[in-house]
């Protein structure tokens, strides 16, 4: 069976139940595992001890827009920096990842003549729940 190619257009990003596809140019959920390595008399032994997930998002700034993600993120980080936001990331229909992230302050500004953009690296609290 040939591989079915999926692209960024198959992605859907929802933060706190609001869809933010319109201003998101790139979104990636990645894991940085901590794997301890031991040198034993029999050779190397490995132990996967921890996982830390991150959500990286590249965006077009949407200050001033209705349901602005930048304004919502700024407000969330200002008022409740330790309260997580629920995120749903659909890789393609039938593969959905749900997790919680901590808010960050967005950057403000940009260079002429381009669009105002920003890149966020959001720390994921816990482990994403997958639905395949």
């Amino acid at each position, binding site marked *: 069976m040939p591989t079915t190619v999926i692209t960024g257009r198959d992605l859907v990003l929802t933060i706190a139940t609001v869809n933010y596809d319109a201003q998101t140019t790139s979104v990636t959920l990645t894991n940085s595992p901590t794997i301890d390595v031991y040198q034993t008399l029999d050779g190397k032994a490995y132990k996967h001890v921890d996982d830390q997930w991150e959500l990286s998002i590249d965006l077009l700034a949407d200050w001033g827009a209705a349901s602005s993600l930048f304004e919502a993120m700024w407000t969330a980080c200002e008022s409740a920096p330790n309260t997580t936001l629920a995120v749903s990331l659909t890789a393609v229909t039938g593969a959905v990842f749900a997790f919680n992230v901590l808010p960050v302050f967005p950057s403000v500004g940009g260079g002429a003549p381009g*669009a105002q953009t920003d890149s966020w690296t959001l720390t994921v609290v816990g482990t994403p729940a997958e639905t395949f």
Partner: protein
Amino acid sequence: MPSTILSAVRTPLATALAGVSANVFAYVPESIPAPAVVVVPDSPYLEFDTIGKGTFRCKINMTITCCVAYNSNPASLDNIEQLITSVVAVIPNGYEVQAVDRPTVTTVGASTLLVADIRVSTWYTQTA
């Protein structure tokens, strides 16, 4: 009825440009009465930068073509520079103003025009 690129992008741009001292068109007219400002598509016209396909959204590249009568070279160049300056000043928020191509002499029908293109971009999301 969903919004169209004409109603959401090109007509608002032409409306914003209405204050300049020239005839403004949101499309290419059959004949061009100088001085004139014409909003036309650039190439590539539509670029798809964002994720998802639930809604039609894209970056739109357009050219704002400024035309003045070409009777005397120094005067025409001054006129087109003034027209470009006034057009750039009224381009609405949300538009990237990239560059102005060099003026060229173009013959349209019986009239000879000095023409320069201002390249601009904006983002369009189709709304219900």
